[in-house]
């Protein structure tokens, strides 16, 4: 990797580092200011109140189909303005949410496992009053899959590529029936359909793809009533929502990548929901009466080994040694227990978690022994570790990486930290570590939404990438490929999980990742918020929430 230096980034990093220190001051100041907890957010009038959210994104996600800004975009914008044919049951926190009927009231899969028939709801209207029907579904699939289509959107198509990759043909058989076939035996189309959103064809035709964002119109529980790129988005309740009107009158979204600023917004009452607060602030926030939510959900930090070359290629013992060297409890303590030690790629309790595989404990003796068996004496192994300093959903890279560096040093492995921008990490994911631009990297940071959808295992982490490209870090295991393919071709979810568990078993046995941390999805809210469900997901059901005493 070439040396990069950009002062702005360095400063930014320094700024974020200092943030946690400053939070202390901020929190003390709040205590002096007195009684921040009781105040209600602005404009809390009307039934259900107004929910104001400080997002951790740097910008308001585009209200396009699909939105950008990753899952934060789906969470706050996509799922509120739009519906998919299916939706996750986010109104419970007991199990991993799975696809439920949404715009499709039911679907069937033919025994050949390639033909899906979606029966659409008949009572659904877009926010502009036009009907949702099979034409609207075809319109959007054309828009994402047919470059010849008049309203084909290259940007949306690129962004949605993963979700429509296995669709081969799509056609309407009547006004409320759509039939899709897949390119291969594939039983996860209902997962893919979660994130294919349907905009009003009338609006797309009226404003064109270019100006659509300013006029975004879907079928979802909220309509977009104000949108200033970079500043604010206001979503207002859709009273004729097909699932029944949401309780909230309004949702207001602010982008704020700076944790300290989000905290101030919460304390000053400008918002009543703050994403990813600094862990240091949590204790004080609790004392002040804020609601603090923590819970298992599919998100982890699982760095990947460069398997294209030495030292990790064909050296299981080395990969195991490093896994044994990780003081996961220590890392968790450093981040105030807003994460917990990972045993596998998915968390314990996840349906794909491999039973009876204890994973790797913190065992220095074993680590040292394995390291030596792997052919490296103390001080003989030097690793370049590429990690990102920004991007939401990466937990606390600086603190965690320093800990990892110390952990590895304890067994005589020297780690050189290679901080990089989020964009660079994404680029590496596309280029692959076998690209000569990046081939000096030995270990690469990864923060997957591990296990949120089975379709995500495929993408870039476990197996070859679509189109037969090698996996980005060179992971190439016939067993994994087999289990993953088989899992995607089982009609019964139970069978799918069985194969996926075997896959997990294999990744742990082979120590293909540094199984490090699971995130606990820390989220803070003002006390007046009720009805929020902390689901095992990146997404949230906003229809159940209300603000103020209702």
């Amino acid at each position, binding site marked *: 990797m070439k040396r990069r230096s950009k002062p702005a980034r360095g400063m930014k990093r*320094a700024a974020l580092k200092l943030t946690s220190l*400053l939070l202390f001051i901020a929190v003390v100041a709040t205590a002096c200011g007195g009684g921040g907890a009781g105040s209600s957010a602005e404009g809390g009038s009307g039934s259900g109140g107004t929910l104001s959210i400080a997002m951790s994104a740097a910008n308001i996600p585009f209200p396009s189909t699909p939105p950008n800004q990753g899952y934060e975009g789906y969470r706050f914008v996509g799922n509120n303005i739009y519906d998919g044919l299916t939706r996750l049951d986010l109104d419970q926190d007991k199990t991993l949410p799975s696809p439920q009927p949404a715009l499709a009231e039911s679907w069937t899969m033919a025994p050949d496992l390639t033909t899906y028939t979606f029966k659409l709801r008949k009572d659904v209207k877009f926010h502009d009053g036009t009907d949702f029907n099979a034409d609207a579904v075809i319109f959007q699939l054309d828009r994402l899959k047919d470059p010849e289509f008049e309203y084909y959107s290259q940007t949306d198509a690129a962004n949605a590529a993963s979700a429509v990759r296995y669709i081969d043909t799509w056609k309407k058989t009547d006004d409320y029936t759509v039939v899709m076939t897949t390119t291969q035996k594939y039983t996860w189309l209902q997962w893919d359909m979660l994130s294919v959103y349907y905009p009003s064809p009338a609006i797309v035709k009226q404003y064109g793809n270019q100006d659509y964002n300013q006029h975004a119109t879907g079928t979802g529980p909220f309509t977009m009533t104000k949108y200033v790129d970079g500043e604010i988005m206001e979503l207002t309740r859709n009273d004729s929502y097909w699932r029944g009107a949401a309780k909230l009158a309004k949702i207001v979204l602010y982008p704020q990548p700076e944790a300290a600023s989000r905290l101030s917004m919460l304390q000053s009452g400008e918002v009543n929901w703050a994403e990813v607060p600094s862990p240091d602030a949590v204790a004080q926030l609790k004392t002040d009466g804020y609601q603090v939510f923590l819970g298992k959900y599919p998100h982890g930090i699982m760095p990947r080994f460069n398997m294209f070359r030495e030292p990790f290629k064909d050296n299981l013992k080395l990969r195991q040694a490093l896994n044994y060297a990780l003081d996961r409890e220590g890392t968790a303590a450093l981040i105030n227990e807003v994460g917990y030690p990972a045993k596998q790629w998915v968390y314990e309790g996840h349906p794909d978690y491999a039973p009876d595989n204890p994973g790797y404990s913190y065992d220095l003796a074993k680590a040292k022994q394995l390291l030596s068996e792997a052919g490296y004496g103390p001080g003989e192994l030097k690793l370049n570790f590429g990690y990102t300093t920004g991007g939401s959903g990466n937990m606390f890279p600086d603190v965690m990486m320093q800990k990892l560096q110390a952990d590895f040093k304890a067994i005589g492995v020297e780690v050189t930290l290679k901080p990089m921008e989020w964009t660079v990490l994404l*680029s590496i994911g596309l280029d692959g570590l076998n690209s000569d631009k990046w081939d000096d990297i030995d270990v690469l940071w990864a923060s997957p939404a591990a296990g949120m959808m089975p379709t995500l295992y495929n993408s870039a982490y476990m197996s070859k990438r679509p189109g037969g490209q090698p996996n980005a870090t060179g992971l190439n295991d016939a067993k994994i490929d087999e289990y993953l393919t088989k899992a995607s071709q089982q009609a019964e979810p139970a069978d799918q999980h069985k194969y996926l568990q075997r896959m997990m078993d294999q990744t742990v046995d082979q120590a293909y990742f540094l199984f490090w941390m699971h995130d606990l999805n820390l989220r803070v809210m003002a006390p007046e918020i009720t009805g929020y469900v902390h689901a095992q997901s990146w997404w949230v059901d906003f229809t159940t929430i209300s603000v103020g005493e209702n």
Partner: protein
Amino acid sequence: MLRLIIRRIGLAIPTLIGVSIIVFILMTVVPGSPEAGLVPEDATPEERQAIRDQLGLDDPLPLRYVDWAIAALQGDLGHSQQRRREVADLLTQAWGNTFILALVSAAFGIALGLLLGYLAGTRRGKIADRFISVVSLGGLSIPSFFLAIILLGIFAGGLKWFPSGGASFDDPITALRSLVLPVLSGSLITMAITARVTRAGIVDVFGADFVETLRAKGLTEFEVRRHVLRNALSPVLTTSGVQIGALLGGSVLVETIFRWPGMGLLLYNAISARDLVVVQGATLVIALTFVIINLLVDLLQAAIDPRVRGAIA
């Protein structure tokens, strides 16, 4: 005067071209692909290539630059795929926000800096001077984001006197309230630099021979100081120009912390996303701003200092 303006604009053109070429080259050599944020992480080479083609990323570099430059000359700064908006549109919004913040910050910082610098310079070695020196040194060494976060914690999160961010101009009261904290944090450095330069200038001028003449003429100390201040203004004006230029370029950190979507944030995000057209456009606007500010500073300087008049005409 007019000749000076025309000549300056003439000089600005190669500057702007040079800056845009350098930025263009830098943006194309930094690692990280512009399309990385536009495609999913498991994109196929074909999907990736389609976007690259749309962005024209694989065209020869000189061609890409010339295409951009010709369009820019015709007033078309292009369309940002990443932001899905016209670059001109993005720049207008961001520059407007930054302009208001920069103007108020500059006015506040320079006025306060002048006052402090004057007080320190005229009370050289006394307690007031030492105190002001400490304050201005602090201003230079405390990063503005540090101050911003402290101010935010105390006055927004704690006391709730001011909003914790957002550029809101719906009504004057809200606008003023939303300006207070960003202005305080953004003007700190300007204040500190102005104070130091003013103090140094005043101390320097106090050592000049003509001050004895003024005293020997029987002027009161106050009248003497008026002469001194006017003489000390020239370097202050120069640094103020640089400060205003820097403020108009936008501060990433202050803008991030206070949710003030200005030039700094636009540029930072564009650089992060490798959004070349926005970076190019923003650089152009910032460079142009500097050219104009420098011109204004020179004109002002000529107005207050006859020695400069000869030098720049």
